């Protein structure tokens, strides 16, 4: 059952990711991106990573996509998007870069065939006992706020700097 669901969701995720890139209408590619992120969330649930799945939907599908929608609507890209598309050289360049990245990934995984890590954790039952003991969020909170607190805070400051920078850029135009 889990196997079937996993493959179904993987197909949906990959399919809508491809559709997201190939669609011409930005709103369509936006919806495909939501579909990709939602099916990734389902895959997370299949690996018992409930908290990650919820955060995936809340952060990506929720906040970022709503902001995306904002940008698209305020720039009125939705209806006359054709003149915004770049042809020729840009297409070749982007194909080349993404091809190189894909090649890098393939060569890396060829060299060191990874063990199915996520599956191993699920089968060992470590996560289940952790969730039973501390809850789905508690299992995540301890490493985040105790073991790796410095890295976590530094990431927070990084995001804060980004927000301040965005604000400074936006303010200048007013």
């Amino acid at each position, binding site marked *: 059952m889990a196997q079937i669901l996993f493959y179904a969701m993987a197909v949906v995720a990959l399919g809508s990711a491809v559709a997201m890139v190939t669609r011409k209408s930005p*709103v369509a590619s936006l*919806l495909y991106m*939501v579909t990709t992120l939602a099916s990734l969330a389902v895959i997370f649930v299949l690996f018992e990573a*409930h*908290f990650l*799945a*919820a*955060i995936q*939907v*809340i952060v990506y*599908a*929720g*906040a970022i*996509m*709503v*902001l995306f*929608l*904002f940008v698209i*609507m305020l720039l009125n890209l*939705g*209806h006359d998007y054709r003149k915004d598309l770049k042809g020729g050289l840009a297409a070749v360049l982007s194909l080349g870069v993404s091809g190189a990245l894909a090649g890098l990934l393939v060569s890396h995984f060829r060299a060191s065939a990874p063990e199915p890590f996520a599956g191993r954790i699920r089968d060992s039952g470590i996560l289940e006992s952790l*969730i039973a003991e501390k*809850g*789905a*969020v*508690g299992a995540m909170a301890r490493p985040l706020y105790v073991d790796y607190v410095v890295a976590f805070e530094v990431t927070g400051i990084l995001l804060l700097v980004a927000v301040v920078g965005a604000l400074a850029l936006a303010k200048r135009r007013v």
Partner: protein
Amino acid sequence: MQELSQTAFLVAATLKVLAVFAGVMGVVALLTLLERRIAAFIQDRLGPNRVGPFGILQPVADGLKNFLKEETMPATAAQPYFLLGPLLSLVPALVTFAVIPFASPLPTPWGVVDMIVADVPIGILYILALSSLAVYGVVMGGWASNNKYSFLGGLRASAQMVSYEVALGLSVVVVLIVAGNVTLTEMVWRQQQMGLWFAFPLSLAFILFVISAFAETNRLPFDMPEAESELVGGFHTEYSGMKYAMYPMAEYAHMLTSSALMATLFFGGWDIPFWRGDDAFRHEGIWIQGFDGEGSPVPAVLAWWKTILTFGSFAVKTSFFILLYMWVRWTVPRFRYDQIMQLGWKVLLPTALAYVMVVAVTVLSLDTVGVPYGFVWGAILTMVSALCTAVFLWVVDRGRILSGAAYGLRERYRIQARTLGREAVTPFGVGGSGTTA
């Protein structure tokens, strides 16, 4: 009391899904009638009372009417998205009810069935995730209609829902700190253990949650996306027939879910007050009622009549909040759009942030001192929260309602000064320049 077998679990789960889905749809239909009756009551009319006894079959007639109406499709609309809009808003509203526990566990010959569709470990996060998806329906519908009023409605919806989601999330964080977990079953259990509903020890969070939930469901005074008087019908101007009907259905389903959520988070869920006999929680595989003096678990006594009673308790609490929604809708006028944004970002968000700090510090110091979790623990937190709530209300009020008589006097001085065209010198100090009038 043995565990459910695999087959029994599947059968029970299917039955629960069907029952809850049918129940939610039925209640949503009745809510449309209730809303009209309450509107009529407040405006001193009778309301729809012709179809069936007390007009109880009015929703059926409405549904039939909507099915038979012509489905119009605006020529300039972006078709697939136009059709997707109502669906995207109805589905999240219907599925969120799945994680809310609605009664105490039911003992059956095949094992104990807990009265919740899916007790997922992420509980409330599931609800937050899905309600953040709900905005897509409104925005998509407003944009796809290709109509400036609809588009404005959609934009307002997205801005409003994003803003108030923050305050909503932060007021839930406070509950999480006290409950210690995100599952709603555990929240109900912690309230039973405390002997106090979270509405008291977390009174400010309760107020913030209710305000944000009003904004999240787009109900008056926060119904900017619709705003009939300025935007025709807002995001659903171009919709007709069943496609239109799905939007109100989504709104009522959303209202039902958030009422049930308020009841669960702050009013003890299905808990019956002043009675320990109904307490039940699944602790290390067995159902317990609580812990005795030595900290060893006391097994719970489950019974079918307790399930029915607790369901009644849950239904009463949920209905209370639904009535509150409707009462407010027909009492309070609509906000201006900039006021909504100010309230969300400048009042609710800082308040919620500060309150999270206060509660976290209080909980930490209570635990450090070694006060055991229970009534005394809750009472201390209640006092701290009452102080915060008093400060919040006083600041937000700015001398309008709470200090009524004195404000009236000050206002009279100000008007007097304006007519005389000079600075108003009042017993409260200098204020209200006469020249700006």
